[in-house]
């Protein structure tokens, strides 16, 4: 037990010093000293509750993804069968019951239709399943049912895209080091340190930015619209600015419009005529071609510019717009025009995101907490160091040295792993100091006991370490179990606390047991004491 060959000593010292040195940049930065930039500088991240900032939990509604899939499948089915040669006539198409179902005008063409539709489905998941299930009912009705694997895949893809879009939008705000993580099936966690007011962020993320251009149904009866009766093939969309356009919705054709998702740029600007804020958009090549086609075929007709289900404005197409640029006007302020431009540039969110949890912390409270935590840690450590030294003498001094290395190593490991120190984490830190010496107390008390029983010096030390190790091991495993559950089930700050605990447990066993044993063994070899003053 007390045998430490040279290579082992070198190795243990190397681990200790490297990990302890990794703490220095963090300590320098808290103390306000400059750290030489030539050296690597891993640093402990400060959690939002210490650095100040905002935490948002965004949630998507998977139902919305399902709805959108049904709508786009309906459109694809219509287009595909219309484009088939010869054309396949269908009728009574409906998406009401969560499936796309329609009747073939000519039942003999079931196989041809099936063949066409099969190309619209894709594989989903590992099991070789398709994302849509195709069935023929009563010989002439085709029912397309979304499979669970397909839905899961669509939700996953939507969330991936949403996460990307959220990232782009936050980056456009110019904030530093945001953390954007998908959580579970339908959630995204956004953490932005140092952000004082999360309003702008939330406004930006709350905007889906789904831009659509749809033709206005000029034949719809105003009386129908007033009563909310939907003309066939239409949908009713309310105006965004009800103060200006009134509360009566506008009827637009459900199909045949285009989406404003194929943009290459969007910039805020001002209208030359009335100096109102506008957003000018530039389509990419494909989008520009579609937009040119729509405007060419519908000159002198009104079309509605719809953002997130609300009509911004419904101008008449004066002439074909073939340049690929368009200007959107719609009761903007300079700020909202800017936000819409950012949102359009970063792309539309594939689903709406709702803020279900929000935490924001001002930076002053955190700074105060760090300061007080440091003071408590300093005072606590000093008191423990003195108590241990006066109780165990030389062995206490070894334990104290181990404690100091332990504190450094916890910080060092946290800096290297890039973990985040949170407010409860500071408490975990201080607690670790109180608990870390427990191992030395156990060992030293055992050595005392063995000496009392009359064992010789070396044997007593050897026994002390050996017999105490068992209890130390069991006790630390139970702590790790508790910390692991905290990590799995906890959120944000609690997770940070669990990480500190686990790192502290591992390093404290290393310093309090292994390092002190090496030092004690070295001393025993050099001094060959006849008696132990413990």
């Amino acid at each position: 037990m007390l045998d430490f060959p040279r290579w082992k000593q070198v190795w243990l010292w190397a681990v200790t010093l490297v990990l302890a040195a990794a703490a220095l940049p963090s300590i320098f930065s808290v103390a306000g000293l400059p750290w030489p930039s030539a050296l690597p500088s891993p640093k402990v991240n400060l959690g939002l509750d210490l650095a100040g900032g905002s935490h948002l939990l965004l949630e998507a509604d998977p139902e919305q993804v399902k709805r959108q899939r049904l709508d786009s499948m309906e459109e694809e089915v219509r287009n595909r069968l219309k484009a088939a040669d010869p054309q396949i006539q269908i009728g009574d198409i409906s998406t009401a019951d969560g499936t796309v179902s329609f009747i073939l005008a000519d039942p003999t063409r079931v196989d041809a239709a099936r063949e066409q539709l099969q190309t619209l489905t894709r594989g989903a998941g590992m099991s070789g399943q398709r994302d849509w299930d195709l069935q023929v009912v009563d010989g002439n009705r085709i029912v397309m049912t979304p499979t669970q694997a397909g839905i899961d895949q669509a939700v996953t893809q939507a969330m991936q895209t949403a996460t990307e879009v959220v990232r782009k939008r936050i980056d456009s705000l110019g904030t530093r080091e945001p953390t954007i993580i998908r959580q579970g099936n339908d959630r995204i966690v956004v953490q932005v340190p140092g952000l004082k007011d999360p309003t702008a962020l939330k406004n930006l993320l709350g905007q889906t930015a789904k831009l659509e251009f749809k033709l206005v149904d000029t034949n719809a009866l105003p009386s129908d619209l007033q009563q909310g009766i939907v003309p066939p093939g239409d949908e009713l969309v309310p105006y965004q600015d009800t103060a200006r356009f009134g509360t009566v919705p506008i009827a637009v054709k459900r199909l045949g419009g285009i989406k404003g998702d194929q943009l290459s740029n969007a910039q805020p600007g001002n209208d030359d005529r009335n100096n109102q804020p506008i957003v000018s958009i530039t389509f990419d090549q494909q989008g520009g071609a579609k937009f040119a086609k729509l405007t060419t075929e519908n000159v002198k007709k009104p079309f509605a510019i719809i953002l997130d289900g609300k009509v911004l404005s419904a101008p008449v197409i004066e002439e074909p717009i073939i340049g690929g640029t368009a200007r959107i006007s719609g009761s903007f302020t300079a700020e909202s025009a800017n936000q819409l431009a950012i949102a359009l540039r970063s792309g539309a969110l594939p689903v709406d995101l709702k803020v279900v949890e929000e935490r924001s912390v001002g930076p002053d409270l955190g700074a105060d907490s760090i300061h007080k935590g440091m003071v408590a840690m300093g005072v606590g450590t000093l008191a423990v160091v003195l108590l241990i030294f006066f109780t165990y003498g030389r062995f206490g001094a070894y334990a104290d040295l181990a404690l100091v290395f332990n504190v450094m190593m916890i910080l060092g490991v946290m800096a290297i792993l890039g973990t985040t120190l949170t407010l409860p984490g500071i408490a975990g830190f201080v607690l670790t100091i109180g608990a870390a010496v427990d191992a030395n107390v156990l060992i030293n008390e055992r050595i005392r006991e063995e000496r009392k029983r009359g064992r010789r010096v070396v044997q007593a030390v050897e026994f002390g370490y050996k017999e105490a190790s068992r209890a130390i091991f069991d006790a630390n495993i139970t702590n790790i179990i508790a910390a692991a559950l905290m990590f799995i089930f906890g959120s944000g700050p609690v997770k940070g606390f669990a990480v500190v605990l686990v790192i502290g447990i591992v390093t404290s066993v290393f310093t309090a047991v292994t390092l002190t044993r090496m030092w004690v063994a070295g001393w025993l070899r050099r001094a060959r004491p006849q008696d132990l003053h413990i």
Partner: protein
Amino acid sequence: MRLLKLVPDDTNIHFLKWRVPFFVVSIFLILASWGAVLTMGLNLGVDFIGGQMIRVTFTQSAEAPVAQLRGEVEKLGYGEPTIQRFGQPNQVSIRMKLPHGSESDAGKSEAMAKTITAAIQKAHPDARVDGVDSVSGKVSGELFRTGMLALGLAMIAISIYIWLRFEWQFGVGALFSLFHDVSLTLGMFAITQMEFDLNIVAAILTLIGYSLNDTIVVYDRVRENLKKFRRMPLPELLDLSVNETLARTVMTSLTMLITLTALLLLGPKVIFGFTAAITLGIFVGTYSSIYMAAPILVWLKVTSNSFVPTETALEKQERLAREGR
């Protein structure tokens, strides 16, 4: 230099003699704690019931004007606020239920936070808003469930570990003393009405781990002594084990007390409840490892047989051969 010795050598306190009265007291305390939890209820924070919490510090005042604030916030028509001091006397948390319909429109809770902070800052120019937490009912329900699940799982997982490392009686003893510690801590939160939030669940998980340290140290010594003194009556053997480890128990409790006191008095006030929970738990845990975990072994009739490996046929042969020689 004369070294400190907190526990004199050859201390022999008959702890186990008092096991029945102490056990009755412990059972009473557990029941009283649960009684307090059920009748007074825990003061659940927004983490667990949903709602909005705004934390304000009055930088120029010695004390926060709680009564005045209550009137000011109530006037805004969002309902009755729960206003509490936390940390320093000039810091308050203002808790509100989320406005109707905020589940579907996040803007509503946003607007509420804005209106309230604006009103406060207008009336008190020295008010500094330190944080706003809004948690929807759906999320708070999940946080509560996972929090409780983590607590329950931790207790069970640790007990199973003890069972595997020792014997089933030790597992039961550990589970029971953990239940005792957690109950008393919950009782403290019910009686003091300190805010019970996610951090407190973390605190309880921590004290589950640490309060078990004492139990394990005692159990480890019991196991060792069971092997050593096979004929010693169990109560006597437990007393011996507790006394032998007493110096360590006192020392470790002292170091924990020192650091936790430093944290309570000098540390960040925001986590006062968190530190208080761990402090109480550590001491309840030390007590319970002596008066709950150890006596249970007597009642569950632990014997030394469990730890002395039974002789295999080969070993018996060897022993006989040795003895024959």
